[in-house]
């Protein structure tokens, strides 16, 4: 029988009891994150950098223009015409920094997506099923972990000599998913002991459904924090490799390729405007991603009281 008190009292007399909804963990985390000033400033900065990179073409000039060698404008200091000056081939540094950001960030985001996807799939499968599946997958992960990252990216890159940015994404992703896989596995192993997983299984949820619908949302906070760490690491990886000449083909502007110019002593010594802008943007972008990661970690941690 339903209690029928509410039908008898007129609606005006008694305040209808508001359902006291407790906040979801996500809402709690969002509130905590929004209160974190450094993280919010970083987020705004990162969004501005992303937006300017995406809008590089309307803001400055098409990509093809940035590659054009202009002999009359070689190594010009910053001026009203060229905000950041021009490089040794007369190319506008400001335009190249924006276009470089587009490539560098797009690469980093794609690699992060690939790394997190592979790592989560492997980790969740190993952690959920356990037994020989776990054993086989983790032995493979351990094996992949033995290869020094930078060294093998360089080796793989020189195999695909006529390579595009796609190969770079593939090569880096293949070598860097192991950490995420281990992390997700340990979290899944702890989480699957909970009763809600057992009840999901007992009412006949299939394994994929249990993993994707019940398990993963509960380890999502860990995965998100790991994704920010990966994102920062991948920006460093891409720019570092391009800097050494093993990354993105030299004709495409990226922050790493622009910094490569500083390997010539002449540019490093007397033409600071060619290499300082990409170096500064690169550093501040990574810094902001790190702060966002810290903020997220804090926000997801129920024990922190900031």
């Amino acid at each position, binding site marked *: 029988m339903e209690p029928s008190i509410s039908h008898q009292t007129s609606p005006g007399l008694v305040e209808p009891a508001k359902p006291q909804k407790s906040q979801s963990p996500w809402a709690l985390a969002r509130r905590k994150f929004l209160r974190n000033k450094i993280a919010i400033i970083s987020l705004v900065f990162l969004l501005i950098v992303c937006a300017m990179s995406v809008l590089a073409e309307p803001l400055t000039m098409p990509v093809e223009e940035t590659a054009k060698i202009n002999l009359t404008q070689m190594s010009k200091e910053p001026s009203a015409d060229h905000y950041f000056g021009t490089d040794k081939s007369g190319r506008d540094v400001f335009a190249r920094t924006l276009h470089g950001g587009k490539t560098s960030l797009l690469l980093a985001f794609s690699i992060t997506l690939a790394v997190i996807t592979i790592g989560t799939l492997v980790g969740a499968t190993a952690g959920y099923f356990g037994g020989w599946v776990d054993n086989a997958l983790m032995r493979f992960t351990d094996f992949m972990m033995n*290869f020094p990252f*930078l060294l*093998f990216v360089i*080796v793989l890159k020189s195999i695909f000599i006529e390579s595009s940015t796609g190969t770079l994404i593939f090569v880096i992703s293949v070598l860097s998913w192991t950490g995420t896989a281990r992390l997700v596995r340990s979290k899944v192993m702890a989480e699957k002991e909970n009763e809600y997983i057992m009840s999901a299984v007992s009412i006949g949820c299939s394994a994929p459904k249990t993993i994707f619908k019940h398990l993963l949302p509960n380890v999502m906070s860990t995965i998100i924090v790991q994704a920010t760490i990966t994102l*920062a690491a991948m920006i460093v990886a891409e720019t570092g490799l391009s800097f*050494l000449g093993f990354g993105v083909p030299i004709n495409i502007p990226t922050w790493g390729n622009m910094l490569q110019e500083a390997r010539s002593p002449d540019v*490093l*010594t007397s033409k600071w405007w060619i290499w300082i802008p990409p170096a500064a943007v*690169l550093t501040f972008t990574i810094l902001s991603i790190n702060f966002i990661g810290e903020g997220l970690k804090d926000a997801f941690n129920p024990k922190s009281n900031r």
Partner: protein
Amino acid sequence: MLQYTIRRLIGMIPIIFLISVVVFTLAKLMPGDALSGKIDPLNSDPEYIEEMREKMGLNDPIPVQYVRWMGGVVQGDFGDSFVHKRPVMELIGDRLPNTIILGLSALLITYLLAFLMGRYSGRFAYSFGDYLVSGFNYLALAIPSFVAALVAIYVFAINLGWVPASGSIGSGVEAGTLEYYLSKAKHTVLPAIVLGAMATAAYTQFLRNDMIESSRKDYVRTARAKGTKESAIYNKHILRNSIIPIVTLLGFDIANLFGGAIITETIFTYPGIGYLFVESVNARDYSVMMAIAMMLTILTLIGNLVADLLYGLVDPRIRLS
């Protein structure tokens, strides 16, 4: 402990075998072959080239070539470098001391800085100095090593002129003299600081957090209650307990330093293993490249073992079995 070490070492053998297969396969997949560097460049007669190929065994089936290469590797012979026309082991032997000097000085700088900063931050947590230290940590984490290296060269080598910007030894300096060692130190100090100082953040944070945590423990309260001086509590009681976990990170560092050396050595044109690797990949000098790849991978394996052993050594609660 000894039994465990031996078991782990034996367990490495199949892994090393698999790694060697991977390294060899990758080297074979690379475009061009070793031939180009080895024959008389003026003689382009196809018959002569074919004869040389046959002589060098490049026409043999791949598995045969692998067995021949691996047979040499087991005896410590990685073949000859095609570019330098010398045995690979000799070449690596020349470069290895430079990398070891660089790596050890960098490690020393990392530990020293992390110890000083971590001790200060741990003791005076949430003070102004602590915030300064953590500010430095955030920066050191965010600045990529090659950017740090460029800035360091720009400031210290070019503008201030304190140290040379590249190489590992001045020209015309005789080996063995005092001048030689001074020149070596001068060339090493900048890359070592860049490599070392940028790696402190994790250690500093680790030491700081551990000290803060320890300072709330019972034995510290006991020491305070007995009237021990605050400096003695921190320097004697807490620090000793907090320094131990850091030692275990040493194992992972061994491999990391060599890997990190690739970028740092290339920027400083410092003739070590990392620079040699980049050179050999660019010159398609496969035997050198394979040797370095094998060496660093095995080093990673050993580093992991060292880390595990140190864990057991400093924390008797962890049983190695």
